[in-house]
């Protein structure tokens, strides 16, 4: 409790070196407009890249790019988010907020990768799926669920690189894999800090605190075990030297694929299943939770005499199924 109080005092905003300020600087860095996205990274990483368009169902989403690449001589299917680097491109890319057709295009390419024996590499940098009516009515939720489901069973290695923002289900839909790498200044969270603050603090102004509370930074996610490896960024961040960033990503990805492609497919899928099946800590409490339903007189009396189970037996109990409080 004392720690918690102290912790809260330390997270007061507007102190230059406070954890809040540090975390927020990190969030800003992850959102830097000039950060390289999928296409910029591929320009350096890939010997060749052919972009493929459309989900064959509805349309083509410009916020997600997909295609086939050769990286260090290896054929790899690529799926990644694409934000714009200036306003004009951002308008064309819908500010990097994907619609369902983007995820369905990604699924199409991933299934193709499975059929042709190519590993999948995904680049994750998205604030979240487009939260408007157009996405909703075309089934953004179903698209995310299906994409997650597909990636849990895809019979080919998947490497995920979080390059900027990993925001909620919209990011997760392309972020399920055999290993998850993250650039040093990237963030990963269950909801954007702003969204979290609006819901829990009822004000977007607390988003800095939300960023601290959710432990969004790549290093913290590494500690939680969500991210396997943090790729250091050159100099003042990825945007200062995109080419070097891309080379570092390429080397890290190659090292991972070297290992993954040697595993048998069943082994790989079992390891992937175990990885995701084991996420999330919980314990087993010693007793069942206190009953909330209306208690009879016997139960109330039993509350007074916790040790004596004979009292309720004499009086009978209105509860069924739940063991009494004095029993084990």
């Amino acid at each position, binding site marked *: 409790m004392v720690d918690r109080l102290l912790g809260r005092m330390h997270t007061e905003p507007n102190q230059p070196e406070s954890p809040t300020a540090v975390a927020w600087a990190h969030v800003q860095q992850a959102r830097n407009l000039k950060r390289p996205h999928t296409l910029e990274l591929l320009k350096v990483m890939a010997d060749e890249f052919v972009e493929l368009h459309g989900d064959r169902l509805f349309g083509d989403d410009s916020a997600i790019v997909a295609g086939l690449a050769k990286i260090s001589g290896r054929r790899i299917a690529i799926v990644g988010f694409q934000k714009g680097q200036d306003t004009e491109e951002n308008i064309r890319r819908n500010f990097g907020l994907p619609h369902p057709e983007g995820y369905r295009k990604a699924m199409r390419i991933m299934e193709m990768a499975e059929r042709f024996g190519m590993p999948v590499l995904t680049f994750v940098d998205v604030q979240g799926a487009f939260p408007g009516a157009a996405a909703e009515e075309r089934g953004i939720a*179903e698209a995310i669920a299906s994409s997650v489901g597909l990636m849990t069973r895809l019979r080919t290695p998947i490497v995920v690189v979080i390059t900027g923002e990993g925001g909620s289900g919209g990011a997760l839909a392309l972020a399920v894999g055999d290993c998850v790498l993250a650039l040093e200044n990237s963030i990963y969270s*269950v909801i954007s800090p702003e969204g979290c603050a609006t819901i*829990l603090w009822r004000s977007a102004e607390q988003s800095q605190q939300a960023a601290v509370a959710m432990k969004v930074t790549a290093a913290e996610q590494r500690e939680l075990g969500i991210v396997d490896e943090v790729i250091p960024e050159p100099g003042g961040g990825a945007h200062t030297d995109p080419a070097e960033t891309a080379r570092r990503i390429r080397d890290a990805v190659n090292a991972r694929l070297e290992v993954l492609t040697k595993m048998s497919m069943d082994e790989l899928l079992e390891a992937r299943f175990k990885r995701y099946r084991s996420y999330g800590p919980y314990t087993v409490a010693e007793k069942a939770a206190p009953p909330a339903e209306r208690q009879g007189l016997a139960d109330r009396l039993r509350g007074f005499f916790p040790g004596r189970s004979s009292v309720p037996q004499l009086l009978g109990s209105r509860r069924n199924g739940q063991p009494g409080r004095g029993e084990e």
Partner: protein
Amino acid sequence: MPVRLPFRPRRDAYPPDLWKKCPGCAEMLFNKQLDKSLGVCPHCGHHFRISAKTRIEQLMDPGSFVERDADLQPVDALGFVDSKPYADRLVAAQLSTGLRDAAVWGLGEIEGRPVSICAMDFWFMGGSMGSVVGEKVARAGEAALENRIPLIIVSASGGARMQEGTYSLMQLVKTMSVVERVKAARIPYISILSDPTTGGTFASFAAVGDVNIAEPNALIRFAGDRVSSGTIGEELPAGYARAEFWVSHGFVDRIVPRAKLREEVSTLLSFLVSQAAAAPESGPQTGFSPRSFFSALTGALTGEGSGSVTGAAGPSTDGNGTGEARGEAPGSATRGEAPRG
């Protein structure tokens, strides 16, 4: 440490007062009358939100349901503090609902047919999905796989639980990976979406049932109003994306009023189960058979009991975590009960 008094505890589902005002028709309803009508307003048909236990009671054959893993306990892994510490929120929710977390799962029967069921409880922190809820959904799915019985999940949830950070996000993958296995094994999965089913819950297992059933007027959405208006400044009309909307857009199969739900699920299972039971033990390996009609028929004729009795009294699966966790249950959250003896 709260002191337990021998008085009736507060019930969130039905507040201690006797009356409740129907938000649909503004009629005053007796709580007891409402209980009898399954939490549906007899005047306008408004479906009130009901607790997980009530839901299961309504769906299952009386006395057939055996709860599993009621003692799974959430952990505050992030040390999360917003306006209140997460640990305190948990204790408050546990005291008001009598649950350890926002889901109840177990094995039971619907009209004599064994099923594995998991129901979410909106009254526990908005039914939000943290690690325990994800675990329970996954275990329900695994029990369905193991016993080759249908899986039923009733969603009532605001989405992933922010207080557990990315661990909550990973529950989408955890649950989906089990659901994918259930589907591959050709075991029927019925998803029931009640009011509300939003966010990460809708964007994972709730959206992908073999059959998706929604309750009338249930709010079903991926992004909430506040997220929509906050991110893209798009104001959506009031009452946007209710159950009826999803039927017309093709993501929900049927809208079923609560009074008919049990019957409807049972009917659907009568179509889906005989096929699942007819499949050999090695389910996923067998190729698709175009003569499935005949195999279903033989299943119905010969295998009447084959897939049916594995249910209620099977060996408990909750043994695996019990021992190790006993000692390390986090103090703050579990000690909310009266000292005894």
